[in-house]
């Protein structure tokens, strides 16, 4: 005990430590107060006419309007920047509804936004970016909150937990002061979408030499996404719709980097969601890097045509059968 009294850090500097703790608490309390009052009062700047994410409004409008012979595509921006829906319509004679917008919205949001609108006879194809299958994928709360702001009905598609709510508020607070990076590029613009939901803004533009969003597919835990897909499949069955899964286009260089993980993921998904038909294999959609536009999931004009051709080939038998 004597040792504690004479030598202990806590006892010997108790006054200084107390002063430090009190000051830190006061500082953090005032800072939090300022932050929360600002985040509650500030409104984020947005322009529904041009904001990329506002394309969700048009996609839902089409989803509501078309009522038969529907081919609904669910996924992230790989669909927006990677398929020619007009060609699919011409070749397969179906009404394409391309719901792809942004992978950051997450699988839960994507499935929930289509679930209430599933109709008898629908063919629904999940074209998910690889990371969307993984349990450690975290949806981008900023994107979701912004999308919900632009299209309020989407508030029911994803519910934030406390941590995400804080992050979303913080993102809103931050974005109030800065311009939207998503708006800087004229390609990422609502006006660049066609009636099917494809973005045409990048066609003909030079792509990046170094593709963005390169990833290393790690930890192959897929329980959360499998559960979501199975629930969605049940909904499809109840409404007499057909659910299919298609792999997405991916650059050769990145495939080589992630080959084992992608092969293992494919195997795992086949084991865990055996009731859903996979219409192709990952290696069917591995394209040369020069067919990509800016990220590992966005194709340029040439790549888009190539993928569309393969997609039609893979889908044909299911559409005819239907």
């Amino acid at each position, binding site marked *: 005990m004597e040792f504690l009294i004479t030598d202990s850090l806590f006892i010997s500097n108790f006054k200084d430590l107390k002063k430090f703790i009190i000051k830190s608490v006061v500082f953090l309390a005032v800072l939090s107060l300022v932050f929360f009052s600002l985040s509650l009062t500030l409104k984020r700047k947005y322009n529904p006419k041009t904001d990329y994410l506002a394309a969700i409004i048009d996609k839902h409008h089409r989803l509501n309007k078309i009522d038969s012979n529907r081919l609904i595509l669910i996924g992230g921006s790989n669909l927006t920047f990677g398929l020619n829906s007009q060609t699919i319509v011409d070749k397969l004679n179906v009404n394409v509804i391309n719901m792809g917008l942004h992978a950051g919205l997450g699988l839960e949001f994507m499935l929930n936004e289509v679930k209430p609108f599933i109709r008898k006879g629908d063919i629904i194809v999940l074209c998910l970016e690889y990371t969307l299958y993984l349990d450690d994928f975290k949806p981008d709360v900023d994107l979701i909150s912004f999308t919900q702001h632009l299209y309020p009905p989407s508030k029911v598609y994803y519910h934030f937990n406390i941590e995400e709510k804080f992050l979303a508020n913080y993102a809103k607070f*931050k974005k109030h*002061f800065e*311009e939207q990076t998503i708006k800087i590029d004229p390609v990422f613009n609502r006006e660049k979408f066609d009636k099917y939901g494809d973005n045409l803004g990048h066609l003909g533009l030079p792509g990046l*030499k170094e593709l963005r969003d390169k990833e290393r597919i790690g930890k192959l835990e897929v329980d959360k996404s499998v559960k979501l897909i199975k629930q969605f499949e049940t909904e499809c069955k109840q409404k007499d719709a057909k659910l299919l899964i298609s792999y997405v286009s991916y650059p050769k260089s990145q495939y080589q980097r992630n080959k084992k993980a992608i092969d293992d993921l494919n195997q795992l998904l086949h084991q865990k969601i055996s009731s859903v038909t996979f219409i192709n294999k990952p290696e069917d959609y591995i394209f040369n890097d020069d067919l990509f536009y800016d990220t590992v999931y966005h194709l340029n004009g040439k790549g888009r045509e190539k993928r569309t051709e393969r997609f039609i080939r893979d889908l044909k038998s299911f559409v005819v059968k239907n």
Partner: protein
Amino acid sequence: MAFVPIYILILGFTIVIDYIAGIYIENSEGKRRKLFLVMSLIANIGVLAIFKYFNFLNDNFSFLMKGFGLQDPIPYLSILLPVGLSFHTFQAMSYTIEVYRGNQKAERHFGIYSLYVMFYPQLVAGPIERPQNLLHQFREKFDFDYDRVSSGLRLMIWGLFKKVVIADRLAILVDTVYNNPQGHKDSSLIIATVFFAFQIFCDFSGYSDMAIGAARVMGFKLMTNFRSPYQSKSVQEFWTRWHISLSTWFKDYLYIPLGGNRVAIPRYYLNIFIVFLVSGLWHGASWTFVIWGALHGIFIICGTITTNFRNKWSKKLYLDKITFLPTLITFILVGFAWIFFRADNFPIALYVITHLWSGFKEIVFNLINNLPIFEYLGISKFFALGLIIFLETINYYKDKYDIAYWFTSKPMAFRWTTYFVVALTIMVCGVFDNRQFIYFQF
């Protein structure tokens, strides 16, 4: 560059080797002493060679073998570069070298030696410490000291500000241009290069500040790693202010053993050149890094050769009256070399360099035609420029005065207002998108 938990074994391997080597070196004499040092160095350099340089060397070898019709005669290793490998390897090497030189007693306590290599504030990006400065501190006992803790936290906040507000904001603009240089105006190439000079400074010195600050909070003193490098009046001076822990490492363990400046003049220049080539290679296994290092070597050699000539003519032409001129020229030279550091490959660097002149003409044209700078740059670049001016103003005063003392002597209201402004600026203007520290890859 990656954090893979199993790679802790690499660190464990070098720790065990160097710990044992240190004791054996101390207990041996003559050739045996040298043998243990060499074994330790081989182990450390071997790890670096495998993880960092094997594929680079193999790449070059395969390229040469193509001429003989051979396709990839040696298979490539599918490995990732462990985070901060070059930093802790160099720190470990300095330990065995110092024990060998008799400047440091071998550490008998395995835990303390491991802590020396793995001390978390500086494990992944330095400062690269010397055993004489750090090891003994692990045996000291630190009481809570209000002033020391506050000063450490202030330094951490300043480092965080530099990283997330300045470096990462500049990175958005720099990456946009350097990822697609052909898609941008030539003047943008110059602006992006200047921005990169400050991005890398804020990124790296920001990390160092946070590391030094975090250590200070706990009572440890780490060495200074940056002293306003862009205020340097020559490239030689730049290297006494930039990444000081690495430049002194090379000075102590490579330049001086090579003979330093106590040799014939051609050999002295060769020594300088070798040191900078190795320094380039230390930064990355790529020819662009080697060229970057070589350029610095050439700048310093040319600077040394022409000292008398330059002094004479600058006096004759009254250029010595323009006090900022040497600083400006140094910045241009260092900035030019940064092109190779930032460019992903040689063709991109070449493209940027061959378009610098037309970019310069574009900027001059805009200035002559009085285009409003705000309109010309756009809000993002204008804001970034403001941040750079702010940073260099702080650095200017930091270089001349004891800014920490000045700040702490101000009334509490002033200090607290500053804390709030800085904290809110970080929250509002900080870029939080999981952007890594550039130097983590080395």
